[in-house]
């Protein structure tokens, strides 16, 4: 558990672990000991780009994930943390442009080139947990139902125990009828996992690469990992 609040930043698909410009250090885990309401406030505060969830990082934007464990016992300090992270995000945004070129020269010891699978898995599951807290609309279910939630979770957990190559972090959305969809996308390359809300619905994997578009009608975690690797590279 960190002794001071730490912040992780993502530039493109790279993690800046430490930088002489940013007096920050980064850990691999994101602690989440706070209540949902507070977490949401922190999430909004640290999202430098609007509308995105902090657990799923935009490949084009600056994002911050804050280790809030230190504040668990002193929740009144959270407000200060939000101001602090806001300021740091502003600083990061300013530095982003000038940092890009320098980043390429930074040694591997200071830049994590890829998130490890467990970190990505953790973020996907956090996003799924947030979806489960959404309110449904009369004509649109924002929450995946139990069937889809369990099935999706199983696929993702299984897939990320295998090698998924250089696949990007997926976007996740409800299908409006209790199911859930995940999409890994980079340029024109796409892999989608569609999980139906019940056994009678169609659950499948869609993939689109340079040479092919195809459907897998009997998906599994292993197959998903294989498709991610084949589409996005090893």
């Amino acid at each position, binding site marked *: 558990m960190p002794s001071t609040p730490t912040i992780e930043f993502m530039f493109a698909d790279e993690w800046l672990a430490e930088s002489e410009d940013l007096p920050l250090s980064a850990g691999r885990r994101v602690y989440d000991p706070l209540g949902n309401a507070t977490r949401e406030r922190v999430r909004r505060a640290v999202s430098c780009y609007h*509308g*995105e*969830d902090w657990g*799923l990082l935009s490949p084009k934007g600056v994002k911050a994930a804050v280790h809030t464990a230190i504040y668990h016992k002193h929740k009144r300090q959270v407000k200060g943390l939000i101001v602090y992270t806001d300021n740091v995000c502003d600083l990061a945004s300013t530095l982003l442009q000038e940092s890009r070129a320098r980043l390429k020269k930074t040694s591997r010891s200071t830049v994590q080139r890829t998130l490890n699978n467990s970190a990505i898995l953790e973020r996907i599951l956090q996003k799924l947990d947030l*979806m489960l807290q*959404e309110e449904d*609309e*009369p004509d*649109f279910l*924002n929450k995946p139902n139990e069937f889809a939630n369990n099935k999706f979770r199983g696929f993702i957990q299984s897939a990320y125990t295998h090698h998924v190559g250089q696949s990007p972090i997926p*976007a*996740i*959305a*409800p*299908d*409006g*009828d209790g199911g859930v*969809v995940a*999409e890994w996308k980079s340029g024109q390359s*796409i892999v*989608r996992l*569609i999980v139906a809300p019940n056994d009678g*619905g*169609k659950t*499948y994997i*869609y993939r*689109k690469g340079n040479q092919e*578009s*195809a*459907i897998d*009608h009997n998906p599994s975690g292993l197959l998903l990992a294989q498709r991610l690797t084949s589409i996005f590279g090893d």
Partner: protein
Amino acid sequence: MPDVSPSEHPLLYRALKTAWLDLPSQAFRLRPAETYLSVLLWANCTKVFCEANRQRCAGEFVLETAQVAAKWKVRSEGKNHAGIHGLPLHGDDELAIEEAATELESLIIEVRRR
């Protein structure tokens, strides 16, 4: 219903759910009871007034009518309401569904957020 004229209505507006901002292709697949994809012909929406009469609307995806009409039928379905016809129905061929959603997503020329 008559076809929508691209010269009269050069743009189509797909009212969007917040969840679709992250995953736009989701906005372009038919749901179980739908036979066409609903779009607006104009969208003078504000935070308190929604042309699509939605309780929660996050904005619109804007598409060019001519580009959509080059591949699918765009028919008037009411005063400010049109439908994109010819998309694969829910439960039909999965590859066709995904390809259509991917292609329509690629036609988005603007995302208007609210």
